[in-house]
């Protein structure tokens, strides 16, 4: 673990939901550090708070209390618009159900994050970029489609660029989703049960691809309840009742 430059650092991260009349304490003060280039699995049963944790780390939600530093920048108190920009530029999501847009081709799906980037400007995100070895492709001059094609090539699907999600197998869909997570050169890739909807052999392929990305120097956080999957990460963090187990 690289303690000098943590990608993620949370301090006493707390989240309360209001459900009807009662407050539900989903996170009860989580302190978490994940270094650059780490491949971490986050495990826990349902209700443990791992989904809430992932939503907060993915800047999809804001904490009730505590701090969340992403690459040293406090992103816990950002506005919705600023969080959208962080998601766009620093975070890549991989979902259990792939979440590709059915009407777009694989290439357009992969290029989607870059399209939302075009208007907002690219180089103004304050935080320092971490050099990712093989990830540091020349990205400045390339068009979104060229970059999307490069990302598809990286996951081995360049020949499926024009296919729609319905024309692809489950494993191929997840590869497209991984390419979409990669294309923006994010600081953190969040994978939520990436093999949950795949058979074991295809799931194994996907895990190997994630391991390759880790080997290339990327930072990955894998949320899962499957011990076999978690074991392929560098190390595992466990959650229970809204707390990180020591």
């Amino acid at each position: 673990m690289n303690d000098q430059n943590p990608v993620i650092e949370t301090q006493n991260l707390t989240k309360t939901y209001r459900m009807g009349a009662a407050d539900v304490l989903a996170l009860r003060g989580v302190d978490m550090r994940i270094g650059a280039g780490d491949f971490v699995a986050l495990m826990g049963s349902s209700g443990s708070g791992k989904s809430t944790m992932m939503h907060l780390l993915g800047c999809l939600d804001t904490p009730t209390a505590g701090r969340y530093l992403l690459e040293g920048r406090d992103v816990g108190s950002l506005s919705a618009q600023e969080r959208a920009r962080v998601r766009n530029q620093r975070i890549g999501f991989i979902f259990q159900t792939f979440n590709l847009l059915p009407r777009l081709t694989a290439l357009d799906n992969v290029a989607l994050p870059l399209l939302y980037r075009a208007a907002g400007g690219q180089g103004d995100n304050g935080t320092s970029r971490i050099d990712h070895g093989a990830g540091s492709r020349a990205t400045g001059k390339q068009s979104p489609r060229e970059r999307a094609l490069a990302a598809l090539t990286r996951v081995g699907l360049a020949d499926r660029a024009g296919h729609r999600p319905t024309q692809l197998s489950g494993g191929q869909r997840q590869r497209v989703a991984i390419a979409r997570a990669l294309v923006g050169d994010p600081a953190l890739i969040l994978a939520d049960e990436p093999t949950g909807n795949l058979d074991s052999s295809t799931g194994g392929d996907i895990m190997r691809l994630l391991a390759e990305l880790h080997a290339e120097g990327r930072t990955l956080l894998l949320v899962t309840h499957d011990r076999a999957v978690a074991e392929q990460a560098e190390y595992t963090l466990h959650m229970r009742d809204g707390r990180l187990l020591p």
Partner: protein
Amino acid sequence: MTFVNVLRTALSGIAANKLRTGLTMLGIIIGVASVIATLALGNGARAAVENSFRFLGSDQIQVSGQFTVEDGEPKPAGKLLSYEDGLTLPDAAPLIDRVEMTVRGSGKVRHGQTTLDMPFTGVDAGALTSMIADGKVQPVGWPAGDLLTSEAFLARGRFFTHSEVAAGAQVCVLGYKTADDLFLGDDPIGQTVWINRKPCEVIGVIAELETVDEQERTRSKPNETFYLPVSTAVQNLFENDPWVEITARVTDEARMDEAKTQIAAHLRLRHGIEQGNDGKWLDDFRLTTKKDILGVQQDAARTFSVLLAALAVVSLVVGGFGIMNVMLVSVTERTREIGVRMAVGARQQDVVLQFLLEAALLSLAGGLVGILVGILAIPLAASLNAGLALLDPASIPVALLVALATGIIFGLYPALRAARLDPIEALRYE
């Protein structure tokens, strides 16, 4: 997100539901078609006035006598509008710098052994110009669209001068057929004809004329007539004072109403007109400007226009709610898509823009079809409004704007609803 990408996204959203989209657009189509037809009615009325009253310039006031019909015969309502009334007008009404008078009658014209009885017109020196402006007749075979000149209206000689009109000179200009019938091919210029036993020198022959309107050609005989200076005609050809038509030119177009007041005051004084019990003047004359005629014609078109405009508003509102409905369904169906877009960095304004643009495109497409339908419906509208309907080119951008505005107004709520979705909830949506 660049505009082109937003546009592509919106278009693919529309293309995904063609039937629903088409049905939704129906309201917009009817609404926009009604807008086109409404504006065509107003435009048609305006064009009709422009056509039938072209002789009346916007700086002119037409003064005419009032007539009542008794036993099928028109009778003057009071005193006749006389030549003297016109002559004294410029001095009495400071805003009037010139009047043109016309008197019509029928008389006998003789040369040698031939005597012809025909209608004539007593005119001012500017009568040829007025005839061109009126646009009812043209020289035979005149190419359509070519600019007419006073010269083109003359076969031989010349027309009256201002001094001839002022002096009541014994000169006349013959119609084409009249000259032919009297002189049998000889040159009539400089010859003397006898009009109601008074000698008159022929100074010109009008070119052979035909009515511009082809259906009028069998009835009208524009070549069997002759012209005299109005002064000469009034002095020589009538036993009693004839009634004249007066066209008064106003020095300042902005002061037409003031000029009308001056003319009315002058004529009321000369005709000894009194106020009725209700304080209204019992005028025996009528003052007409181009604006007045336009107003009357437009009143007629207005009733029908109001109906169409109401139809337009109702259809557009119905169409607007249709769009709102289809967009709400679309937002619900695509909740997960919205979640994905938000997860990869779409801001709220990106989502708003996407759905607004989709609604706008939907309504614009409806607008385009509506314009087509509206143009096709113009003949129908014309048949209900005395044939007066003419496509107003300006109505096309107006209709497109109306359609666009409908789409944006009614698309706003669904778009905002989409943008306010919680990305976490949206991603979980099944």
